[in-house]
């Protein structure tokens, strides 16, 4: 019978665990000044968690998409209408918010690493991102108002049903992302910041996904509605 001799596993010290790239989920501490953590660093558990969450959201929107395709083909009552033009402006706003978010991440990383003592640039770019996100949601309200002014409501037609469904659900998810930004701003604004890099990374992945999801939805609505 073969003999298996077990080598003792390599044991990481606590410092190695805390400072290695992608340390354990809630082992992740705010980095001390002078540490060399990357701006893109996030703990494995946070990364896994956000990707799992995004997978679930993707699956939901895929289900809605398939429902839309089936419903369109199920009957002859599908009526096309022109999308409100404000949607295109909203798209630019949302994409701009993704750009400002990346600027914010770099500034936040510099501040948390002690390379910059003034947190104002971080806060400025974070507030800009938050503002653009709110502007996007406000713009969606304008789009809905424009449609209502034309007499197009949720139950008017199956195409309008899906328009409102997709845009409202997306806006609700965007509001969730804005809640995440609020948390980030609150933590970094404290006298002693308690913001973790992983928190900002998680919120960022989610926000960029919302932008990408909106591009997909816009194309879907533009081609189908």
């Amino acid at each position: 019978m073969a003999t298996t001799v077990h080598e003792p596993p390599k044991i990481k010290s606590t410092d190695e665990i805390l400072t290695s790239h992608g340390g354990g989920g809630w082992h992740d501490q705010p980095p001390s000044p002078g540490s060399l953590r990357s701006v893109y660093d996030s703990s494995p558990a946070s990364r896994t968690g956000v990707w799992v969450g995004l997978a679930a959201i993707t699956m939901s929107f895929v289900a809605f998409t398939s429902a839309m395709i089936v419903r369109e083909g199920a009957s002859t009552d599908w009526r096309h209408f022109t999308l409100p033009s404000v949607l295109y402006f909203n798209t630019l706003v949302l994409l701009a918010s993704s750009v400002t978010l990346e600027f914010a991440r770099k500034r936040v990383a510099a501040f948390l690493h002690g390379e910059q003592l003034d947190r104002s640039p971080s806060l400025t770019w974070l507030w800009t991102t938050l503002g653009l996100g709110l502007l996007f949601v406000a713009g969606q309200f304008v789009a809905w108002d424009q449609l209502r002014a034309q007499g197009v409501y949720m139950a008017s037609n199956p195409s309008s049903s899906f328009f409102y469904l997709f845009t409202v659900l997306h806006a609700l998810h965007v509001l969730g992302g804005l809640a995440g930004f609020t948390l980030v701003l609150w933590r970094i604004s404290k006298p002693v910041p308690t913001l973790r890099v992983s928190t900002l990374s998680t919120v960022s992945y989610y926000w960029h996904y919302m932008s990408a999801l909106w591009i997909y939805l816009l194309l879907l609505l533009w081609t189908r509605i």
Partner: protein
Amino acid sequence: MHDMSAPAVHHHAPPTGFIRKYVFSLDHKVIGEQYYALALVAVYIGLVLSWIMRIHLAWPNFAIPGLQLLSKTGAPGGVMTPEYYLQLMTMHGTIMVFFVLTTAPFAGFGNYFLPIQVGAEDMPFPHINMMSFWVTFVAFCFAIAAFFVPQGPPLSGWTAYAPLSALGSVAGPGQGTGQVLWAISIGIFCIGQLLGSLNFISTTLDMRCQGMSLMRLPLSVWAWFITSCIGLTAFAVLMPACILLILDHVAGTSFFVPSNLVVNDQLQPHAGGSTLLWQHLFWFFGHPEVYIAIVPAMGVVSHVLITNMRRPLLSHRVIIYSMVAIAFLSYMVYGHHMFVSGMNPFSSIVFSFPTLAITIPATIIVLIWLGSIYGSKLRINTASLFALGFISMFISGGISGFFLAQPSIDIMLHATYFVVGHFHLVMAVAALFGIFAGTYFWFPKVTGHMMNDTLGKIHFWFTFVGAYCIFMPFHYLGMAGNIRRYQAFVDDFMAPLMPVHKFITIAALITGAAQLVFLYNLIHSRFWGKPAPANPWEGTSLEWSIPSPPPFDNFDGKLPVVYHDPYQYGIEGSTGDYVMQDSPEQINSVRDEK
């Protein structure tokens, strides 16, 4: 021997205060216990509903005492109306499938033991974990609330087929507010499960202690991990379906209601919807859901059997690969619920083939269990008895699935009691046996007390024999043409089957009463049971390396280091015939995973 365990970092302080300790707890163990308690309440509600249904089926004109208190219009004088039978049937199925079979084996045991078995102090997102339970609790409240609205709960079945479920109160009692409450409940339930799956997946992938490779994970952990992957995609489809159903009720949309539908002499205002769309969305979730119910039980049964056999299974990896194969195939078979729905018959073949194929990994798992048990000196205790009972139920219920998997036979058997017998045996009873096996096995760890094994064996035998007395005759009834979801059997060809129904009802009442023995044992042992040692079953996985009950942070500040696979039994070790996973003892084993 020097201490090689890595020091742990606590992410949340020990709780203080009753609310933080027992109500809004961040501790995965408390959350697991909360889920289990919810499932316990739900299962007894579902049991009582089944009793009421069975009594009505056997004696349709019998006035059930007190039933009129639940619904004056549904059961005047205690005799239920046909509609009320369907309403109770709907809630029985809904409560059992969602709040028992999905909650207890997965969320209950999984929340408690998954972090411990991977060597973690807790899940990575404790607040989300807490939210997942309370969201599920709110969902349960919405479901129960349906009993108390004026027209009562919905009557469209747990499957809520459109257009019946989408039309509103014109379609029948409970189809208005009751149906909307049902859809809200299930939609919220989906959110709770998604939040839970997020934690399970992250814990399994990222929170394993040192030395705990994927292949060193116990089979119960693999089962919970695979289940959470299935749940992530399945519940993410059911939630949109519920949203669309709610919109059809409250927003005047027509996703599921076709044109020109006349119900109760009224032309319905909806137009253009697709009733099949609901079925596709529902069963895309619905079939993976049955594996969400059964795969955790498979993991528990594997874990319990191995510990009691005192030797590993014939192949650890093949069990894992088979469970993965079942999960993968589960998305391809859902159309077998729709063979007679009017789909293109060619698509029936497309779904029939993977339905038959999915029996292959399931059979492999069963054969590995049986082959491993053969020749072993299986310790007989209540947990191992329920594990054996699971295998029996799974085989019995699974065999009837072969017939239903074939469209030509399903045409005759669809919507008969054959189907009801099949899914009750293979899913409901088998999963319940898995829950019982897990309960008797892990109760000492959770509470620090042993359950009474004599009462446990009485519970087992009454349940085992009773389940067969109830559900085996269902197959005969189905083959004789007994249609399901009927509240009375007045047709000539079904009248001769009434003695069978009476027998089943009596068996159901006795089997249900035996569950009270379990409840008594559970409560009595919790407070007055014999004190349990840390490792009463001489198990090797990490939960048996910590005290009973476990400390707040599971490992008392020092994360374990794993050196072996989880099932080193039949090895001469310092502790006896087994070597704990976290023992640095060097052993000679050809089967030890890296």
